[in-house]
């Protein structure tokens, strides 16, 4: 491969005068060191073979691969016509007098949804407009009414969560409630919450813990510990998002704009707590099980190829309710509340119990504390 065709920058420290060294550490191109065999093809032959196979392609990168292609007049015309037809189709559905009113409205909604901005940058009117569009779209498609909110963070509220590891019995009622509340995909059995069954006296060994047990619980000699999105105050997932589709709200919730997410999953890789989930397929929820009380940043229906995660049930918490997991827990192991309210129960827990968080040394400042009786 010629040197002027590198795809990355490498530092020239003056030791590049070595000629083609072959694939062997000995520096010789043929014979001598013992690892060179005669049936190995030479670098030159290899390059020629690759050139013959993929030609110019490998010298081009990104933009060039798409636009810098050889094209005669005929192909150019053919491609232009094809794209024109697609565009014309979209226009004709929305302008035609023969298509039904519903189809037109659907096309109109889809068009506007396609070109809306990032939720974070929207004005209140724009937010209301997109919520209205989504509600109308659902009505047109499923003939059912949903209730969607775009309620903002309340002033003087910072949500925090505490989990009592001596109370949790591993019943997993929280997981069930979460799936039902947040319209998670039933096919892939996506779950935001994981309950880890840990051995007593072994410490927190997540690699040895079982998060998918199925036996009578609590099992002898085990304790249970739940993990989900910890809504870090310094969230690494937000920092890595290349399109700013995820951010931290003023009340501390880390949320995702599902319509702005490009599905790169950087956030999933950046999260040290396995808090994020990806929709590998179009999420499916049986119509009668869809939770119709929704929030734009919360449990509204997602699409294929976007990230999602626990939002502390933003549709519930911003209305004063407890998240579904807190409400479902039969043991009272889950405490939720406003960290800024000095009289709140979560504050009492933080001030009076021996609390700890996971991977505190990372500086992510999770707002999810564990404690014991």
């Amino acid at each position, binding site marked *: 491969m010629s040197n002027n065709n590198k795809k990355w920058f490498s530092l020239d420290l003056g030791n590049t005068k070595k000629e083609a060294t072959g694939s062997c550490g000995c520096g010789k191109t043929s014979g001598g060191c013992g690892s060179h065999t005669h049936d190995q093809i030479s670098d030159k032959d290899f390059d020629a073979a690759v050139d013959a196979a993929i030609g110019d392609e490998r010298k081009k990168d990104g933009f060039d691969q798409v636009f810098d292609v050889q094209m005669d007049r005929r192909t150019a015309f053919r491609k232009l016509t094809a794209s024109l037809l697609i565009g014309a189709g979209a226009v004709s559905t929305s302008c035609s007098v023969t298509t039904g009113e519903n189809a037109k409205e659907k096309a109109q909604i889809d068009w506007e949804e396609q070109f809306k901005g990032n939720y974070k940058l929207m004005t209140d009117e724009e937010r209301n407009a997109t919520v209205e569009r989504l509600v109308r779209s659902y009505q047109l498609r499923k003939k059912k009414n949903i209730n969607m909110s775009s309620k903002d963070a309340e002033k003087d509220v910072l949500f925090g969560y505490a989990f009592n590891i001596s109370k949790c019995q591993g019943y997993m009622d929280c997981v069930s409630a979460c799936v039902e509340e947040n319209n998670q995909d039933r096919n892939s059995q996506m779950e935001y919450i994981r309950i880890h069954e840990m051995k007593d006296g072994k410490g927190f060994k997540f690699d040895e813990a079982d998060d998918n047990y199925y036996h009578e619980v609590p099992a002898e000699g085990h304790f249970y510990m739940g993990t989900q999105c910890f809504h870090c105050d310094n969230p690494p997932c937000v920092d890595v998002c290349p399109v700013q589709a995820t951010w931290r709200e003023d009340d501390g919730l880390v949320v995702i704009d599902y319509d702005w997410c490009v599905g790169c999953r950087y956030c999933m890789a950046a999260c040290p707590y396995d808090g994020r989930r990806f929709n590998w397929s179009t999420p499916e929820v049986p119509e009668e099980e869809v939770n119709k009380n929704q929030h734009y940043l919360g449990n509204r229906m997602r699409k294929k190829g976007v990230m999602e995660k626990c939002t502390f049930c933003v549709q519930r918490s911003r*209305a004063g*309710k*407890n998240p579904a997991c*807190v409400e479902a827990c039969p043991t*009272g192991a889950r405490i939720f509340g406003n*960290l800024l309210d000095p009289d709140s129960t979560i504050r009492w827990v933080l001030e009076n119990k021996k609390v700890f968080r996971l991977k505190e040394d990372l500086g992510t400042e999770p707002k999810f504390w564990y404690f014991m009786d």
Partner: protein
Amino acid sequence: MTKKNYIYILGCTCIVTLFSCKHGEGEYHNITDKIEAKSKNYHGTSISSEQLLEGIETVEISEGPHTFLIPERKSQIKSYACTECHTKPLHQLKTNDTIKKAHWDIKLAHANLNTMNCITCHNGNDMDNLKSLTGNTIDFNRSHKLCSQCHSKQFEDWKGGAHGKKVAGWAPPRASMTCVNCHNPHKPSFETRWPARFNTQKVKERE
């Protein structure tokens, strides 16, 4: 020369200390500092649990510095008032016949018989109320006072909010479940059972 060096090092240290902490607007060293600073001027929020508590009958209790609501209990007991059947003191109602008696289904599984029996909490002469270990009357709506005689640690946690569940939402006014809303007083421990779900997809993915 050495003096110059010292000044240089001192200067560097100063600069490093000055710039090492980002004291920008809204930035704190950690979440604890942030909570402390931001809650100094806390005057409540517009979010309230009152609406969620509508239709739930509650009574207000004050325990130490904590004042909160607990669900009203008497209306939830199926055959309260007890004196509707227990018209006479218990010893007068006692019979030796073998017919199935009322409360036949109650089996006491709370501590052991050395520590507790029926009359540890119930008063045969005053069935409409509970009684403390010293014989004082405790109202059924204040039954936590009875439990707290032995379970003092749990009581402390419950008062603060670390033990037990909330009724309705997180926002004030605080309404917490009382002991008997989760624990059957005659058989207070939680039972083992099967988990609510099992993720078959996870099993497949990990094969």
